[in-house]
């Protein structure tokens, strides 16, 4: 049986459904282990994606990776899991490495695809400039799946939800405050991203970027200098030393396309570049290019998107 860890404290994210789909496609029964007090009617919908069992420890809030590793290890032992899947998100990145040591099981961090025929698993290396194929040398393997690498797929299975007490002890981490911008789409999970760089000239001009993003239902991102000078928050900085993303659509306005920027975004399925300079290096990595002034093109783009959306209804 394959085991998937999901944090369901805030409901089921798309990344969670991706991990269940991935586990099911590996070709055996799927059990899910989760923390948080989600309703069993919510958790049992994981059956739609192929899970047949959900083990829920509602006593854990999911803030301490030291507790979560005990939870996942206990569940893995209970069901005899040989493959354990996480999302390669902020929780997976904290818990999967701990589990690797605890179980002495090889970890493939940031898988972007199902295993190859020889069992090796593809990951991004060199910040997306190349791919590596990881061979796991142990009988039990742990895989953390990069968000947006596969789409959730239904595979209806009867699913039971069981209470599970992992006896994970007390939390070593005390949460003092949590800040989550309302309604914002977490950048690593976003399917559509509108990004802008120094070409926007100042933070007061970001309204036209946000307008396009909201018309599309996209997240916003930026180049490094823009975050460095404080025009935009650090968590929006994408690239080799920022967040690496692979949305379906990446729109870059006023960004030159330096190698360090491209490294974090060239896993995007489609790239649109808007730049006044026809020689900007970003055009070489783009699928669609507009040589033009972002201050004129972005508002027109927003209008065109609104028109398109209105026509669809």
């Amino acid at each position, binding site marked *: 049986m394959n085991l998937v860890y999901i944090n369901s404290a805030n409901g089921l994210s798309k990344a969670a459904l991706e991990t269940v789909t991935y586990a099911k496609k590996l070709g055996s029964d799927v059990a899910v282990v989760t923390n948080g007090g989600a309703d069993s009617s919510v958790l049992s919908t994981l059956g739609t994606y192929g899970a047949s069992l959900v083990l829920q420890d509602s006593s854990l809030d999911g803030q301490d990776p030291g507790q979560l590793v005990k939870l996942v290890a206990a569940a893995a032992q209970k069901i005899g899991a040989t493959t354990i899947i996480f999302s390669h998100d902020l929780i997976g990145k904290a818990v999967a490495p701990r589990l690797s040591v605890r179980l002495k099981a*090889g970890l493939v961090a940031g898988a972007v695809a199902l295993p190859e025929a020889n069992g090796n698993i593809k990951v991004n290396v060199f910040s997306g400039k190349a791919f590596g194929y990881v061979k796991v040398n142990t009988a039990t393997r742990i895989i953390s799946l990069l968000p947006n690498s596969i789409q959730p797929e239904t595979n209806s299975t009867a699913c039971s939800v069981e209470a599970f007490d992992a006896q994970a002890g007390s939390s070593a981490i005390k*949460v003092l405050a949590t800040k989550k911008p309302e309604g914002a789409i977490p950048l690593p999970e976003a399917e559509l991203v509108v990004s802008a760089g120094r070409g926007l000239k100042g933070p007061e001009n970001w309204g036209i970027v946000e307008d396009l993003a909201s018309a599309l239902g996209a997240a916003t991102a930026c180049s490094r200098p823009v975050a460095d000078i404080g025009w935009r928050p650090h968590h929006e900085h994408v690239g080799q030393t920022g967040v690496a993303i692979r949305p379906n659509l990446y729109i870059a306005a006023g960004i030159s396309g330096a190698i360090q920027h491209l490294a974090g975004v060239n896993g995007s399925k489609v790239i649109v570049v808007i730049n006044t300079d026809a020689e900007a290096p970003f055009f070489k990595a783009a699928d669609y290019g507009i040589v033009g002034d972002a201050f004129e093109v972005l508002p027109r783009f927003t209008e065109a998107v609104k028109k398109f959306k209105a026509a669809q209804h």
Partner: protein
Amino acid sequence: MNILVCISKAPDTTSKIAFTNGDTQFDENGVQYIVNPYDEWYALVRALELKEAQGGNVTIITVGSAADDAVIRKALAIGADDAVRIDAPATDAYFTAMQIAEYAKGKGFDLILTGKETIDYNGSQVAGMLAEALELPFVSVATKLDVAGSTVKAEREIVGGVQEVEVATPVVISCAKGMAEQRIPNMRGIMAARTKPLTVVAPTALDALTTYASYSMPAAKSSVKLIDPNNLDELVTLLHNEAKVI
């Protein structure tokens, strides 16, 4: 306060990425190595700031061969007090983390800091593995870090936001942007680094749990389709019908 900062070498961000030996090995030909930016800009600089404010010692540690001493000297030039190199190639994250854990065990470090990931293998694995091996709490992807006595206050990234947390030392923390600003070593630092102690430690016998079997390069993009800046309807139509992303 005793701080251990784990540093890794990483190819300079402008390096040409290529592979040799039937695409099974990274081609190091002409590659310049730097200190992994997250380790240097955030973990190391914040460790130095804490030491400057409160006293203590900053030790850097890396798992690598003698060829990596240049990278170690650079971190010493920025201000670390001393350095340790576990004398073995860093075959995988598990091997690396277990070597560092073996060294750190019982040495009384209050803080063990790493970068949030390396820019070559991007695994974000070593810090969490170290925490588990040393049975310590772990704050992952911290963007702020303050210490008062044995109480650590940190800000960390969570899915869709940030969170302020409190934890007691000793603790393992992986560091990201926001925590500190890059420091450029000055001449005095560079001179002093030459004579700072660098201890070379023999590795413990241990097998890697994973192997990079091979590598590939992404398929080249076909050339860009240029759109008239006055006809954004065309772009939207293409994104819908051709690219199928909206």
